């Protein structure tokens, strides 16, 4: 579903960036991408979603090369950043319709999907209000609905659980499982290691722009160590 091969990205005038990132997200995967602040998670996600260009490497979405067919790739995924700055001058429903129009979602289909997820995330009544009046959590929920409105095969999320209330977090986990059950995949960054351990079947740990550990969750934790233990262990090991 998503193949990142030897991705390198350096910011001009800075040492920061990512180097030799290799990640393969298969259909049905819920894939966690973890690392400390400034490790390169968001940079990687922004390269994958076409927001940033990259210096070398290859990104394939459902077999299509992001550099050569960016629009075809983007039709297959949806992305939500860690702090969703949405169009505050639109109402919630106007924003959802804008995204649906871009993805050419038919009227009946979008009505059905919006009604379903707005109900589940309990923001139906607020859809007629301007986004500028929304709380951070409501914006997060709206961004999630906008990501789901075109039924993406791949969902790319940056810190998706930050700002969500407990019920919405449960709904989101359910949505993630539904997408994977239907042949899609999830690739998300998080700091919440407990959630990653319980929810994901694969994980990659990044530090200072390089991958330092990764694999299937069951293999990593087979010795009874928690993901938190492994994370601290590899970070300390790398530092030493």
């Amino acid at each position, binding site marked *: 579903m998503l193949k990142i091969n030897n991705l390198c990205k350096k910011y001009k005038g800075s040492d920061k960036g990512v180097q030799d990132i290799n990640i393969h997200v298969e259909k049905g995967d819920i894939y966690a991408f973890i690392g400390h602040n400034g490790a390169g998670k968001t940079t990687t996600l922004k390269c994958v979603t076409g927001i940033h260009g990259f210096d070398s490497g290859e990104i394939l979405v459902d077999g299509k090369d992001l550099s050569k067919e960016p629009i075809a790739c983007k039709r297959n995924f949806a992305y939500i950043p860690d702090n969703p700055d949405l169009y505050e001058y639109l109402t919630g429903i106007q924003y959802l319709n804008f995204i649906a129009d871009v993805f050419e979602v038919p009227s009946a289909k979008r009505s059905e999907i*919006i009604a379903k997820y707005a109900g589940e995330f309990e923001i139906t009544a607020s859809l007629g209000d301007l986004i500028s009046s929304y709380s951070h959590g409501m914006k997060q929920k709206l961004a999630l609905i906008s990501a789901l409105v075109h039924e993406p095969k791949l969902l790319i999320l940056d810190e998706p659980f930050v700002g969500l209330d407990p019920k919405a977090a449960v709904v989101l986990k359910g949505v993630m499982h539904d997408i994977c059950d239907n042949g899609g995949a999830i690739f998300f960054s998080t700091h919440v290691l407990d959630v990653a351990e319980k929810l994901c079947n694969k994980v990659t740990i990044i530090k200072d722009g390089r991958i330092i550990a990764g694999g299937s969750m069951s293999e990593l934790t087979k010795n009874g160590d928690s993901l938190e233990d492994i994370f601290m262990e590899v970070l300390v090991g790398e530092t030493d």
Partner: protein
Amino acid sequence: MKQIKALAVAELCDLYGFNVLRHTKDPVERRKKLVVYGIVVLLLLFVVSYAGALSFVLIAYGAGNAVPSYLITMSCILSLMLAVFKASGVIFRKNSFDIISSLPLSDSAVVFSRFLRLYVESLIISSLIILPGIVVYAVMCATDAMFYISVLFGMISAPLVPVAIATAISALITGIASRMKHKAITEAVLAVILVLGVFTLSSSVSETESVMTEEMMMQLVGSISDVLGKVYPPAVMFGNAAVNGDVISLMLFVGISVAAFAAVVLIVSVNFRGICRRLHSTTAKHSYRMQAQQQTSLTKALVQREAKRYFSSSAYVTNTIIGPILAVAMCVALIFVDVNTLLPELPVEINVNAALPFVFSAVLCMMNPSACSVSLEGKQWWIVMSLPLSARDIINGKLLFSLCLIAPFYVVSEIVVMATQNFDIMERIWFVLVPAFSAVLSCVFGLFMNLKLPKLQWETEVEVVKQSASSMAGGVGGILVMIVFAFAAAVIPQGFLLIFNACACVVLCAVTLVLYRSCLRKDLRTV
């Protein structure tokens, strides 16, 4: 005092983006900033030369005594015009309001520090006008110690009154708008009314001056002080202090300036929190009921989004709608005024009708909205970048909206002109074609400049709309080109006019095409 100092440092440390230039490690960012500063320096050189030359001319015609008053008046008017649309964005800005509110700071300290920012910006502008003129005056006329003392105090005090007036007007507009449901639209309408009022007022002053130019030059010179006294009375006090060494006039000038400033700071401080709360609050009804949604085309969706963005910002609307409104006003004015009678006698024959399409185009295309449409995406740029949209989709959406905005003003102007002016058939054709091509070019040129000089990181929209390099270059560049065309059309022999106009249209189309292609080739991820 410590609060004011801390806040003032925070306000002033990134004035004109110097802090970013100082600390950024991104060479592209640094280069862009230097280009912007280069453009600003060129504009400032023009202002400095103008002020110096004007002083020289006044002294040469024996009106040297009016120079200090004239310079103060000019600097105050310019400071007022620049500050009046910025004051609201600086003083009542939403950004950081919550954090500032939660800190143990008095409202008066917050307001004063924000005033200080406006004051320093105005001080820089006014110094650039006053200093060159004063240097010319000091060299050409006899001066004493009191002159220099007056100039020093006068220069420091000069921006206080215009900043105070600008803030008072701005606070009034913002205060009224904050009580309305549609705050941005109300603020924009009030601001447009203000601008049109200023234009009407200034045109009435110009009318007086045009009558005077018919008198002898020396009579005009003699009346300058009277005119300045009417336009800006404190300027005469400053003039008395600088030229005649009148200490009381100097004290009055400084006293009035400080008093006006203090009064406005006090009044705004008292109402600051109330205005900010009302201005930044949004009504949420929580009453939406799910209903069937309608699909629209991609182009329509993108244009509608641009329209929503446009009308959500009073600064954006105010800055960009003035040109089209003035264009319509100009066409209406043509019904009542024969432009040929306004022209002074010149050594060459002037064909006003030939120049009119270009002059109309210059006004119509002033400050095109596309010149800051990319920058205004700001932190939301990620949305279009992560969606399956091509550069062509995004660019066309922005251009189409700008054209849709100008189109009604163009159509109304054309109808008025066609119905009222005695143009021949060719003049009518050029009056239709030239503005149409110019409008398209101004939209494309504005977008081109914005893609070259984007500014996605900003605190207030005013920074983008009024202070960004793309807004200045994109908004003014087209006007300058049109003015050159207008001069050429006005003086070219009648026999060559057809070829000239045809060539002008071809050039406009060709440049539009080249710029449009350049926009399409731009990698939007690097913006």
